[in-house]
């Protein structure tokens, strides 16, 4: 035993459990508080997400809390000063909310769509969406349109769950893991925990990424791929699997639409749709009875392959026949794929054979009895221990939706969906393909929308367009330009509002979104747009409200600033109605509660929203007598029910707190959560943990607790009828709305392929690759989350300047020196940056860390901070619009299906900077400090108590 030692005094310390918010991962934290200061933030060992561990960001939460960039008071742009000049005056909350209420009431009573409310990296979309719906504006979304929508849409229109946060590899069982295009900013701790488990078991980890950083560092095999070509790689692997008949017959026949019969009559209406009986059932060919049969009837022995002629004389083929014919084509051969992806053909073939080996020769079982959708008992779950995960590198391309579908197709061919060792769903997923709710289509004064502004279209009838086919949303989501834009197109809001295309708005509210800097494309021009005025002197965006906790670049452009609290100072619900924290084995949600008392005149935005909802008399937020129904956010979370018994938090419901998942509101629910370390976890019975798309017990549970509208089985759609309907509309073969503009028609006909396909990203189709030979993408450092952490005194010591990373040999051939300055130019602009030559970069690619560059003076940094003088944004090079084309209106630089911002389609050229050309360019004027802000300290000596010195 050690010598007697003295330790710090725990007597004056208090332990509080909450949820981290240093990124979107939402780990459980255990916070030790001393005199209203944070002594220590650590991972909560009992928490399902992080199991005790915590990343660099999480531990650096202290420095976020004590950031000098914290906003302190509501602010109004000083009358008579220019927007963006950064001249503010402090006002009271009453003044601020009176001003806002009056303005919003006027908008709501006249044309609710004149309010655009867009939110950034928040975790409260269930509330903000509800608020927008109650306000009655179509113009709401979160930031998913420039983030993840390709992945979410691909998954939800094919599997019922998706990459990003709706699914996880089965880390405990998988033996082969492919990571496609993953930057390190989401699911970060679970991913690290999982990778270690995989490697400890001797599993293989393949990283497919143009850069070998982050997780790729520990990959057993790194596949440097050209950005935007992953879809081709996946489909070429499918080609190899088909060639060698290496696919899961049983899985395809039982759980997917592979045997469904598709009508084949090219050039005619109805071509490519599933042949259905009069009741709408999809038809298959039963090979035993040799008759057509209802594909959804239990026990039917469907043909996987075949061409048939229906009694009414139509030619039909199975989905699998179409699929096999497509991908067996030489176009998808490894040789051809190699030319596109830069991955050697042998590697492609070997990877396909390796996954097949693990899936089919190292099959595992979990010996648990379960019941399938038709009531048949099975004595075990069969597991194909190959899993995959994909993120931003796939998503942020204009072919990302189809690329994600291609990866899912590969998974389905191997039978690795929601099986042991495979890619598992997380509650409330899987949902029907796609989920049944549709986007609201009409707004009217003083009336809530009939449904939420966002939903899942399945046909042109679901678009949010007017009788002339013009977009009704400011971001043009759900228009012909982005028909399945399920997360909106936040990146288009400023441009469209300023161009008044499709119309002008009155008030724009941004919450936690840095749309004048790193979260926008074309940053410098967007700043100009925010300043732009009409001839009458009125701003083109007349009123701009920014809600944030910190002095971001966006705050500088606000007319009204509403200061939010930090994550340690407020209540939050991380709800199953939103982006929940569930694990594959457990249904989970969680909360935050105030760990510290705010020392500033700030209010949680949720509280402010609930108050505004009361002031504006939203039906769901007022009682019959017109008085506000909820006493604030906390009360709202306790008592609001979306459907009977279903509220924001699923745990400890019912009067007595004994009903989980569904039950009456419980007035003590918050206390129960706080007692239970801030989270709720319902462990699924073992028999409901796999094959949930066809698992009766799970489907019944999901129906009962309101996840799904029915307990019908969920059929995996390899072949998307939804896409085919839009394609038919583009071809002029659809009975329903069809686009008039030939540009839209061509886009629908080309890109809405019912089968996953690869096409060259849209911008790249228009760029001369001889002139702009490099792909340019962003990666995310694991110790920082987007723009949030440059203010963090600890994290910015690790990373305060980004470089343009480039393949060393390639750079040397071009005469570019390590750490030399270079010009990087795209069709949209140029920047000067410092280059670092490295090995871990695909030869045709350059990349940098995202969002390190800062505008001088923002985020509490000194004006000469490295982030402003040496750090840079790639955003200047990226246009929110595609390069113009003769006879075509300007189109968004987005995925033509989902509207996902195509950040990574960028092509650039690189030239060494001249003598004396040093420092980052362009530079921006220094943002002025806000009133009441104290200057940032020159020396920081954070501690919570006098140290207990150890004596020698």
């Amino acid at each position, binding site marked *: 035993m050690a010598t007697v030692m003295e330790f710090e005094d725990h007597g004056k310390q208090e332990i509080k459990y909450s949820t981290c918010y240093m990124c979107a991962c939402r780990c459980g934290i255990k916070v030790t508080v001393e005199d209203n200061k944070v002594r220590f933030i650590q991972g909560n060992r009992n928490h399902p997400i992080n199991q005790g561990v915590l*990343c660099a960001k999480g531990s650096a939460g202290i420095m976020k809390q004590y950031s000098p960039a914290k906003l302190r008071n509501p602010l109004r742009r000083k009358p008579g000063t220019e927007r963006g000049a950064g001249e503010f005056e402090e006002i009271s909350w009453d003044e601020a909310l009176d001003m806002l209420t009056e303005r919003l009431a006027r908008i709501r009573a006249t044309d609710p769509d004149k309010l655009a409310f867009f939110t950034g990296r928040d975790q409260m979309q269930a509330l903000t969406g509800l608020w927008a719906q109650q306000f009655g504006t179509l113009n709401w979304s979160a930031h998913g349109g420039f983030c993840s929508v390709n992945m979410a849409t691909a998954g939800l229109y094919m599997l019922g769950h998706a990459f990003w946060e709706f699914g996880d590899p089965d880390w405990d069982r998988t033996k082969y893991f492919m990571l496609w295009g993953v930057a390190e900013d989401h699911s970060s701790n679970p991913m690290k925990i999982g990778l270690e488990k995989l490697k400890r078991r001797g599993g293989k980890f393949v990283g497919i990424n143009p850069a070998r950083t982050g997780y790729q560092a520990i990959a057993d095999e790194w596949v440097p791929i050209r950005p935007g070509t992953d879809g081709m790689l996946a489909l070429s692997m499918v080609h190899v699997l088909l060639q060698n008949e290496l696919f899961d017959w049983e899985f395809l026949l039982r759980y997917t639409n592979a*045997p469904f019969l598709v009508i084949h009559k090219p050039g005619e209406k109805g071509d490519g749709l599933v042949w259905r009986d009069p009741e709408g059932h999809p038809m298959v060919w039963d090979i*035993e009875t040799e008759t057509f049969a209802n594909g959804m009837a239990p026990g039917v022995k469907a043909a996987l392959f075949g061409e048939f002629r229906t009694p009414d004389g139509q030619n039909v083929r199975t989905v699998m026949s179409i699929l096999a014919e497509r991908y067996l084509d030489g176009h998808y051969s490894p040789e051809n794929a190699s030319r596109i992806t830069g991955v050697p053909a042998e590697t492609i073939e070997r990877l396909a054979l390796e996954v097949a080996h693990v899936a089919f020769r190292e099959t595992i079982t979990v010996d648990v009895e379960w019941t399938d959708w038709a009531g048949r008992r099975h004595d075990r779950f069969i597991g194909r221990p190959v899993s995959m995960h994909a993120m931003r590198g796939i998503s942020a391309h204009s072919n990302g939706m189809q690329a994600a579908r291609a990866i899912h197709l590969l998974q389905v061919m191997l039978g690795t969906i929601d099986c042991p060792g495979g890619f598992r769903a997380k509650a409330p997923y899987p949902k029907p393909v796609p989920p049944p709710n549709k986007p609201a289509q009409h707004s009217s004064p003083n009336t809530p929308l009939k449904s939420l502004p966002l939903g899942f279209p399945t046909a042109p009838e679901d678009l949010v367009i007017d009788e002339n086919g013009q977009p009704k949303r400011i971001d043009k989501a759900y228009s012909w330009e982005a028909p399945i834009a399920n997360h909106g197109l936040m990146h288009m809001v400023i441009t469209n509002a300023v161009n008044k295309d499709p119309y002008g708005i009155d008030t724009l509210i941004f919450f936690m979104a840095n749309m004048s800097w790193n979260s926008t494309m074309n940053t410098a021009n967007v700043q100009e747009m925010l300043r732009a005025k009409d001839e009458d002197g009125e701003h083109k965006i007349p009123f701009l409200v920014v809600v944030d906790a910190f002095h971001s670049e966006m705050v500088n452009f606000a007319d009204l600033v509403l200061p939010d609290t930090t994550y340690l100072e407020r209540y939050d619900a991380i709800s199953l109605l939103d982006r929940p924290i569930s694990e594959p084995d457990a249904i989970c949600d969680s909360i935050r509660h105030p760990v510290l008392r705010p020392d500033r005149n700030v209010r949680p935005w949720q509280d402010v929203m609930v108050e505004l909802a009361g002031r504006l008399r939203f039906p769901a937020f007022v009682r019959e007598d017109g008085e506000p129904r909820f006493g604030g956010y906390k009360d709202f979370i306790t008592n609001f029910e979306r459907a009977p018994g279903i509220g924001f938090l699923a745990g400890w419901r019912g009067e007595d707190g004994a009903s989980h998942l569904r039950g009456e509101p419980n007035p003590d629910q918050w206390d129960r959560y706080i007692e239970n370390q801030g989270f709720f976890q319902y462990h699924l019975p073992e028999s409901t943990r796999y094959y949930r798309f066809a698992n009766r017990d799970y489907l019944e549970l999901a129906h009962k607790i309101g996840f799904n509208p029915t307990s019908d089985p969920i059929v995996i759609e390899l072949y998307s009828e939804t896409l085919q309907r839009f394609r038919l509309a583009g071809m002029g073969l659809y009975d329903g709305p069809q686009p008039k503009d030939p540009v839209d028609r061509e886009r629908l006909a080309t890109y809405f392929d019912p089968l996953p396909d690869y096409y060259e990203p849209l911008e790249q189709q228009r760029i001369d690759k001889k002139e702009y030979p490099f792909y340019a993408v962003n990666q995310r450092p694991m110790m920082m989350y987007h723009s949030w952490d440059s203010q963090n005194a600890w994290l910015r010591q690790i990373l305060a300047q980004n470089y343009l990373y480039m393949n060393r040999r390639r750079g040397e051939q071009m005469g570019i020196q390590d750490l030399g300055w270079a010009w990087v130019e795209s069709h949209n602009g140029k920047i000067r940056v410092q280059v670092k030559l490295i090995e871990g970069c695909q030869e045709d690619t350059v990349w940098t860390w995202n969002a390190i560059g800062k505008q001088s003076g923002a985020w509490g940094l000194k004006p000469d901070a490295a982030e402003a003088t040496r750090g840079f944004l790639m955003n200047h090079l990226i246009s929110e619009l595609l390069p113009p084309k003769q006879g075509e209106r300007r189109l968004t630089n987005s995925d033509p299906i989902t509207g996902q911002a195509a950040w990574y389609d960028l092509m650039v050229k690189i030239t060494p900077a001249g003598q004396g050309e040093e420092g980052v360019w362009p530079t921006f004027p220094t943002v002025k400090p806000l009133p009441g802000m104290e200057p940032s300290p020159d020396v920081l000596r954070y501690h919570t108590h006098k140290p207990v010195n150890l004596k*020698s």
Partner: protein
Amino acid sequence: MRLGLVIDLDTCVGCHACAVACKEWNTSGTTAPLTDYSPYGAEPSGVWFNRIRHYEIGEYPYNKTVNFPMSCMHCENAECVTVCPTGASYKRAEDGIVLVDQSKCMGCNYCSWACPYGARELDRVSGTMKKCTLCIDRIYDMEIPEEERQPACVLTCPAHARMFGDFDDPESAVGRAVRERGGYQLMPELNYDPSNHYLPPRVHAPIPTDGLRKKAAAKVKEWVNRVVER
């Protein structure tokens, strides 16, 4: 007892979690605070006990990125202690932990010169040398729950790339890991005999793919269906 750390280079993703958790714990720890200079200025810097470097091994496309966390190795032959003129630096006999008594240190930097691993950093404001304490104020504090009586870096490591234990005990987690995974010391030729060991990246055996190649139906029409009940 010979306490120390094992770092698994096979799973370390280079996330800096350990470094920040260390900073966070120790800025209110026994040698608190860990001063930061110019924290919001042009060139931020500060006192850290644990730093993560990143290397590239081999050349494209056969390169591998290796993340390399380093903190005090608590050497058996701790020259930093030998050279210290004031007695501020010492190595505990009972567990081998190397510490600096802040009340005795005169800030001459000599110990840092003697350390090959860059484990010691001078705090310019307190004028004293600071270094990893192996979280001695966690591992022995009986008021901390037993499972959390580990260094902050080990507690937090998301990739479980850090282990803490007694190298004198061959059956401890660290002892076994070193034995089974070929754990090694850095710069052994200097003969400091560091306690901390590094586990090399695992080498993955090739996955057999022979016998998987076969000719499926030449044409889709010729594929013979199998009977599977839907």
